[in-house]
């Protein structure tokens, strides 16, 4: 989480200067992204990507209507 704390947001957001994002807007972005990032971290921690292809198309076929 440390990289997303509001007070460090502007430094962290690599695109910020390029997009001319103000510190206020950077903090807003962080507030919007943080909850999403928390869920994503939780989801990723539940799965180990190791040795097995994570193929969405195969999963679609596996569950498809016969």
């Amino acid at each position: 989480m440390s990289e997303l704390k509001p007070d460090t947001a502007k430094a962290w957001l690599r695109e910020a200067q390029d997009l001319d994002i103000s510190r206020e807007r950077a903090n807003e972005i962080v507030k919007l992204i943080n909850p999403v990032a928390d869920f994503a971290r939780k989801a990723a921690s539940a799965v180990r990507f190791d040795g097995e292809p994570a193929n969405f198309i195969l999963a679609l076929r596996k569950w498809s209507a016969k």
Partner: protein
Amino acid sequence: MTNPAELDLAGAVDAIRSRKISALELTEACLSRLESAQPLLNCAINIQREKAIRDAKAADAALAAGKPPGALHGVPLAHKDLLYRAGRVSTCGSKIRRDFVPDYTATVLERLDAAGALDVATLNMTEFAYSPTGHNVHYGDCRNPWSPQHIPGGSSSGSAAAVAAGLVYGALGSDTAGSIRLPAALCGVTGMKPTFGRVSRYGAMPVSFSLDAIGPLARNVRDCALMMEVIDGVDPNDPATLDGGVGSLTANLEAGVRGLRIGVPTTYFYESMTEEVRRLFSAVTDVFENIGAQVVEVAPPDLDEVAALANIILAVEAATIHSEWFHARAQDYSPLVRARIELGYHHPGTRYLEALNLRAHHLDRFGKAVFEKCDAMLAPLVPIPVPTLAETDIGGPSAIASTVPVLTRCGRPINYLGVPSLAIAAGFTANGLPFGVQLLGRPFAEALLFRIGRAYERECGWHLRRPPAYH
């Protein structure tokens, strides 16, 4: 004398084939209704009267010459203005593409052309398909035919409004996080978001390569299925298309639901839901029990995580697609769309790839929890009664966190999972606006969803109601 306004798509096809009405008569009636509704509804961006009349005359001439009619011969349709047609402006609801003229035609439009359908207008949409309400600062807000003070839903706002008002017999929309199903529900029509890969996206301005789906909106289930039968199938120009769709989508429409297991979720979909909507949703489950389905509870797992992962994919892919314009013409986006695209530049690449890689895992978990217990799942689509334009005027970034998630919560995870979802009309709330629900199925189970949806609409008849101002 056949009254064009009373026909549905299937009826219009039959009427033309049996020479009860000509394509020209039908087209002139649709154009007249479109033009008279436009000042209030604002559902069209470009009504192509001359082209439509020319094409209708050609359709009549072909029939008179004995040429075998296509599946939708001579029937006027119109589509969301992000589907490209060579030589015609496709604004994508944006200022940036106000003058964009593609030099090729979307595969879905080519397939409708080949089936003999007429394309009479481009329809309003939210800017770059990026909002669930129907507001558009560049071309004016689209309005709900049931009440001009209320939103039609988005992003396929014009498609839903035009079909609900009976201005055309069907329309294509696109759905990245609910953009077909949401406006279909809010306007009281039927909308299908097909399985990921079932319908080509070639020639459609993308929002998110991994989540986008093109699908039909129509006045009832059969009409939706008829359009799907024309547009689905593998397309070499869209490498994401799959050959999973097999067989007719209409052959078993009247088979009913006796013996089928309809799952009802116990989690996720009820957040922010009003008591009134909860009662209406409960009534829908009662109907399915009454017509012979076995209603079972299911607990789809992790949908908050799934929605978050969908959010990441959508944000990053949209930011990528818009990168050049975003740096060069940021001032030409509305504040809302600019603010939402901006989010995509701030996710690490690893998070985006994790979100993509986790799709198989989450579909597997969803399948075990849902598809091993039921044939299809009935789920809420919009947790609140249709709001007004004023209530949802999300002009700036600060409203994104409150308004957008409420409207897209029930639809968003479905695009990540890639499964098909059919929105059907399911009643009205006390404010007189439509209420809709969604049916979810296994990948490529569109035919079953149409069959279940048809059984419900046959029992309840909500799809037969028309907005009073557009009878």
